[in-house]
Structure formats: C-alpha cells, structure tokens
C-alpha cells in the first residue's frame, strides 16, 4: 500500500519531468526516458516488490501524455519490467550490471516496438535512419541518466522499506 501511495505521485512527477525537460534534451532525434529507467531501477532495488504494478502505472501515465497507442506503451513498459526482473535475478550480485544491461536492452526493445507500431499504423519510419538518428542517441542518453535515477529510486526504496542491518 505504501509503495502504491509513493509510486503514483512519483511516476506522475517523473512523467511531467519527462515531457517538460527530458524529451527536449535531444541528441540528433533521440531523447532519454526516465520513466523507463525508474521502473528498471525500482525492480533492481526492490527484489520483492510488485514489479508489474510499477510498469502498469508508469506505462499508463506515459500513454496519457504520448500520442503512441495505449497498447504499445503498456507493452513496452511491461516487457521492460520483465527484462529488468530477469536481469536482476541473473546478475543479483551486481546491480549496476543489471541496470546497464536492462537499460540497454529496454531501449532497443522500446525502439523496436515503437517503430513496429508506426509502420503498423501506416506512418513511414525508415529503419536504418531511425537506428542512427534515434536508437543510438537514445541509448547514450538512457545510459547517462541511468545512474542518477538508480540512486534516486534506491534511496526511495530504502526509505520505504528499510533493510535490517546485520552487525558482526
């Protein structure tokens, strides 16, 4: 319940920051996605949390602001959550490796779903031009934003559910 009370306003704030600032910081035509990174960071930080809940809340809020169809947005964020969960389980000893791997794979997955959606609805989106102009700059920006977002989400996670410290 506490997580829900925090996640909703938190993702609301992150979505607003995304549309107001992050989307305007562009390299070529690519821009970062801090909502996606927040979902990944939370899943890596809080291994026992309801990871799909975060993905659904984040995806729903972004779909309100984006012209991308709701189904595509939800699919992106839910799949990203699954990727992050798998990465967190495989590389549980190294959260930073999980973070980088999840951020990279999620960026590629998001790109593929978006370009497929555009082509499905009949909007021309040349693949190789999109890779060089959107995917690669977006990947760079997402990896750049990943660590600050991870630190923020980690702090919030520890604040919500403090871990018992074991003293030798």
């Amino acid at each position: 319940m506490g997580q829900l009370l925090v996640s909703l306003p938190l993702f609301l704030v992150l979505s607003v920051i995304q549309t107001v600032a992050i989307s305007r910081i562009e390299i070529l035509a690519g821009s970062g996605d801090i909502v996606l990174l927040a979902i990944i960071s939370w899943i890596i930080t809080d291994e026992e949390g309801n990871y799909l809940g975060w993905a659904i809340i984040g995806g729903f809020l972004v779909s309100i602001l984006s012209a991308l169809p709701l189904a595509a947005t939800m699919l992106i964020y839910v799949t990203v959550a699954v990727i992050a969960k798998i990465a967190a389980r495989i590389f549980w000893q190294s959260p930073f490796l999980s973070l980088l791997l999840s951020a990279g794979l999620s960026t590629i997955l998001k790109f593929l779903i978006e370009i497929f959606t555009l082509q499905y609805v009949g909007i021309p989106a040349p693949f190789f031009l999109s890779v060089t102009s959107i995917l690669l700059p977006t990947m760079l920006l997402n990896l750049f934003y990943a660590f600050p977002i991870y630190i923020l989400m980690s702090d919030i996670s520890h604040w919500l559910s403090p871990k018992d410290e074991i003293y030798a």
Partner: protein
Amino acid sequence: MKSIDPKRLRNIIAIFIVVGLIFLALSGVLRPILGVIMDPFVSMQRWLSERFMALYDFFTLPRDVTVLLQRNSQLENEVSSLQSQVIQLQEQLAETEILYSLLDFARSRPQDQYVAAAVIGQDPSPFLHYVIIDQGSDDGIRYGMPVVTQQGLVGRIDAVTSSAARVQLITDPGAVVNVKFQNKSEDAQIQGSVTGEISLQMVSQTLTINPGEILLTSGLGGNFPVDILIGQVVGVEKTENDLFQSASIQPVVDFDAMRAVLVITNFQTINIQPLLPDQS
C-alpha cells in the same frame, strides 16, 4: 573748553577703526592682506584636521568595518534579489514579445479567431513530434483546429482534454499538409519524418523548383486555412525514373524554441473521408 574723556575718545577711535575696516573689507581692499594673515592658519588647521581625522579613523575604523560588512551583506542580498527580479522581468519581457508577435499575426488575419496557448510539454516518444499546450476544451479548443505562430504553420490539434491539448506538429512523420508555391500555381504535399525533417512530395517532374521558393498552405483537403506560411525549399531531389520529384523544406517555425502558439478556433475542418473511394 571741556576736554574729552580719553576713555571715550579711545572708544570712538576704535569704532571708527572697526567701521573703517568693515568698509575696507567690503570694498575688497583687505582681501590680499587677509589672505596673507589667514593662510598660515588655514594650513595649520588643515594639517591638524588631517592628523585628527587619521587618528579618529584609526580608533573608529574597526566598528565601521563591522557596519560596512553588514551593509555589504545587505547590499549583496539586495543585488541577488534584484538579479532574480531582472531574470523574471527578462522572462516576462520575452513572453510579452512573443505575445505581441502573436497579436500582430492575429491582427494581420482579422478573419480568424485565436486562442493563445503556452507550450508545456513534448511527446515522450522520440519518434513522434507532438507538443502539449495549456488550453483545452474549456477554452474552446476542439479536435482538428489548426495551430500557428507569428512565423507560420505549427500543426493541428490531435487530442483534447478539458485543460490541455496535444498538437501534432507538421514535422511529425504522420503529418501531411497540402501546400502550394507562392509564385507558382502548382500544388504539392509536405510530410514530416521521424527525424523532424520536412520533405516536399507529389511535385510533378516537369516543374522546376528552385531553392528559396516559399511554400504556403493550399487549403486543399480542408484541414488548414489558405495562405499560411510553412517554409522554403532548401534542396531538390530529382531522379528521372521517379514519378515525382521531392525537396527538403526548411520550416519558418523554430519548433525547438517554440513557447507559445495560437489556435485558430473558428476554422471548420472538413472531413472528406466519406467522399474518398473505399480502399478495402
């Protein structure tokens, strides 16, 4: 003969001398003499005064430094406050200039009715070129209304809530606008792309296009009013085997720096979909 009292005589002489000196002083005759007499006194007074003030400063300066430091701190605070005010005023001035420009544009097209709106966000997807504005259906904004700035065409309303609306920019890959050349009778289309570039399409191979030619909305299709400025041709791509030639367009609107827009509220968009032949 009664003799004059020597004491009274001295007084009379003294009065005469004083009166005489006053007359001489008033007439200016005594000025050089007074100067010679007073100069040493003035010099001495100045010397003494300087030494005294130096001594006075020596004893009172520490207290003044404290006062000065406090005063300096106050003034620094005031400077910071004034600097923030200056920044706010500069922001307001920039906003006012934008609004004045929009007003000028609105006056130049008196047949249209406008609602001014601020740009408050951008679509999170890098593939899509949409912006969010702070006016919605409560302010008379409806789906399909054209959006312009003082420079030219921006796009059209794509989605509306009660207090905000989403605008599809002409740089969006899904945006197609019917256009015409300013100095030619030919019509064509422009289309955006995922990278935000605009290309001119559906131009006959027989037409000669030169860089710098101006494009305006043609009004065909009923989605936009006629004669709104779009941009100019910067490069032409002509391949003999293609049916049409194309060109890259430089839009007049700076979409990255766009802060306010005008929505044309009295323009009735025409839905021609029922008139089109069934594709299926």
